């Protein structure tokens, strides 16, 4: 068990190293000059060269990367080119909001997705089943910007149930979580439906039923824990998907997370911020996957014995 964990840890570190190299090289080859963004439109060629030297951007790629990596190992993400503030400060002030939104979104997508999936599986091949699957299809395909604005308009502006964007209380969290969660709930309802149908066919479910257990008890005590297993592994992957969606949702709802930070940094070629957010996202995804594996390990004895 400990050996497995260590092996995974080393793998994760290698993945992060790979991510940092790829991102760094891509940003280096980007046809846009960060120094121009700093120097402004009235700068002379000399000013531009001065700034390039100060930032070490005149050095070869590998020298620049080595400098970044040595800083990184000491926990130094550098300073933003345009804000001049430490990247770690910027990320630390925004990361809690993003994590909270992500937790809210996971809760929303599980609540919506699993209940839809269970109902659809139990009412298999009925109108109910079909309409739920159409709803989930729409959820998967709808652009988040539109979904977000629609929810905001109906539930915040028209009905006044929730605040019109912003951050701070639980009611601020509801609409952005649902917006972000709707995408995942579409996937989950389909996964849950097929997984549930599969499990309901198993011998142990028939046995449980034969014992004379109530229908609800069969579903919640015997079928659900088994049907949910493949779902848990997906949550880890979700974190990666959310990192993309979070940019849009945060900007619609004025949610002060790292998505907005990344978006503005990309537009202004603020490389230290882009690198920092990418790495933090990669860490979140790696940890998510790691946790998913460990949880599967704990709930499913079959995997445990294979190790």
């Amino acid at each position: 068990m400990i050996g497995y964990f260590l092996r995974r840890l080393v793998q994760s570190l290698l993945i992060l190293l790979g991510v940092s190299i790829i991102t760094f090289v891509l940003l280096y080859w980007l046809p846009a000059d960060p120094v121009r963004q700093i120097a402004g439109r009235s700068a002379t060629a000399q000013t531009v060269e001065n700034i390039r030297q100060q930032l070490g951007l005149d050095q070869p790629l590998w020298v620049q990367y080595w400098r970044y990596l040595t800083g990184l190992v000491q926990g130094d993400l550098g300073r933003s080119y345009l804000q001049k503030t430490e990247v770690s400060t910027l990320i630390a002030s925004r990361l809690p909001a993003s994590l909270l939104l992500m937790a809210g979104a996971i809760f929303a997508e599980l609540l919506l997705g699993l209940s839809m999936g269970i109902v659809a599986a139990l009412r298999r091949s009925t109108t109910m089943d079909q309409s739920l699957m159409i709803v989930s299809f729409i959820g998967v395909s709808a652009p988040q910007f539109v979904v977000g604005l629609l929810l905001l308009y109906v539930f915040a502006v028209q009905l006044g149930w929730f605040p019109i964007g912003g951050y701070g209380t639980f009611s601020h969290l509801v609409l952005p979580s649902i917006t972000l969660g709707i995408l995942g709930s579409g996937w989950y309802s389909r996964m849950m439906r097929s997984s549930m149908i599969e499990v309901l066919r198993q011998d142990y479910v028939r046995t449980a039923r034969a014992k004379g257990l109530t229908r609800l008890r069969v579903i919640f005590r015997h079928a659900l824990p088994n049907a949910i297993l493949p779902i848990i592994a997906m949550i880890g992957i979700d974190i990666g998907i959310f990192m993309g969606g979070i940019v849009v949702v945060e900007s619609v709802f004025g949610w002060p997370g790292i998505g907005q930070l990344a978006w503005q940094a990309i537009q202004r070629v603020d490389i230290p911020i882009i690198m920092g957010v990418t790495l933090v996202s990669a860490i979140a995804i790696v940890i998510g996957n790691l946790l998913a594996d460990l949880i599967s390990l704990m709930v499913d004895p079959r995997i445990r014995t294979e190790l």
Partner: protein
Amino acid sequence: MKNFFATTAIALCFALPAGAEDYQPDPNAKSGGNIVVTYKDDVATLDPAIGYDWQNWSMIKSLFDGLMDYDPGTTDLRPGLAESYTISDDGMVFTFEMRNGVQFHNGREMTAEDVVYSFNRVTNPTTQSPGAGFFWSIKGYDAMASGEADALEGVTVEGPSTVRIELSRPDATFLHVMALNFASVVPREAVEASGDDFGKNPVGTGAFSLAEWTIGQRLVFAKNETYWRNGIPYLDQITFEVGQEPIVALLRLQNGEVDVPGDGIPPAKFQEVMGDPAQAGRVVEGGQLHTGYITLNTQMPPFDNADVRRAVNMAINKDRIIQIINGRAIAATQPLPPTMPGYTEGYEGYAFDPEAAKAMLAKAGFAEGFETELYVMNTDPNPRIAQAIQQDLAGIGITAGIKSLAQASVIAAGGEADQAPMIWSGGMAWIADFPDAANFYGPILGCSGAIQGGWNWSWYCNEALDEKSASADAIVDPARAGERLEMWSEIYMTIMEDAPWVPVFNEQRYTMKSPRMGGKDALYVDPVSIPVNYDYVFVTD
């Protein structure tokens, strides 16, 4: 006081012909109140040497002061931290008498030494100020820029409250430069204590001080009770909420939660707002010192042929492009916007005439047209505008492929001599840094900008015009200010003859405010304190 009146006359001639003397505050203005202003983009910094964005420009103006300033809502210069100033006869030496008793937000009194420190700081290459180049005319600037000196030779303290600035060349725009955010006076001890984080912990002499900053969420400005301009500001507090989509900000304004949406009225909501009399009545419209243009790369065939560039000028239907942005602009005929001194009245520009354009193209040897590329920034409405331009070009046989890229990539392409044949400037277009005709020339149409990585994307370099612009800006005698503007008008007319640009439109600004906001409309579309002059607006409830 004698000096003051003598020099006010100079300011009058350089700026717009309006009363630059005592600005009369609004008699209805009431003190007190807290307003909410929103912006989409986060505030990167409040360091006056660094900040150069839409959202932080007027915030910095409210936190800091410079030697010069403008009458609220106008482009008329007035003295700021300088109580008065004199200019030597040859225009080479400016002597500023500083106000006494002005305090920084940290309680220390501002001195002439602070002015010297601030100018040395902004021009020092290690500060990495995007505004350093504006100080080119101060003696010793070149040594500073190259890193050979660590103080400007031309800026010296003459007495406890007197600063003397000597120039290396006469510069008719110098007083405007002294009113730029980059020329704000900062206290040395606060800058040194915060280091690179001064932008997050600003200390100035301005009408407001920074009370709270929650990164990514909100900034709170509190009234400076000891501000040196009596009775200013009116508001007790301003809360800036950042990260808000313009469309959401407008919904919140309609719901009474926001007083001023800093990014204006989003295109999707414009018709709705203007169609509702109650809301339209609270919309403020104003001109801005802005021109949107298409650059034609004069070093890349076939745009090296002036006739081809003239033909393109005649092919563009500007009125249709203006419709794409809800009519929120007026058609441009020349590089300068109409509200800028030096604008050539009565010049019609190239009229929209596809037949004449085709004929001229044929004369230039391109009867069959040609293929080219149009670079454009990838945010709405710019790609749609590019499509309209593409259709207009197709009308005279030119096939233009659209390259829709991120802002930084378009800027990079424009800075290469052989990469972008045409660029639509939208989203990156020139808004004047200060209200003077010279500000539309150097970096974007002069030889100094036609360098690798420069902003002169048409790579137009006319050395005769460069000389003429230098001699125009050497005219510092107020009696000859009219002559100077005449020269600038001629410069832009020669440029139109050579046609390196297609001037397309001058954008109008539309801002909205909540019912309780008071103060003249001009404060909400201030040409200098962009977008809103926070020091002079007030609430009526």
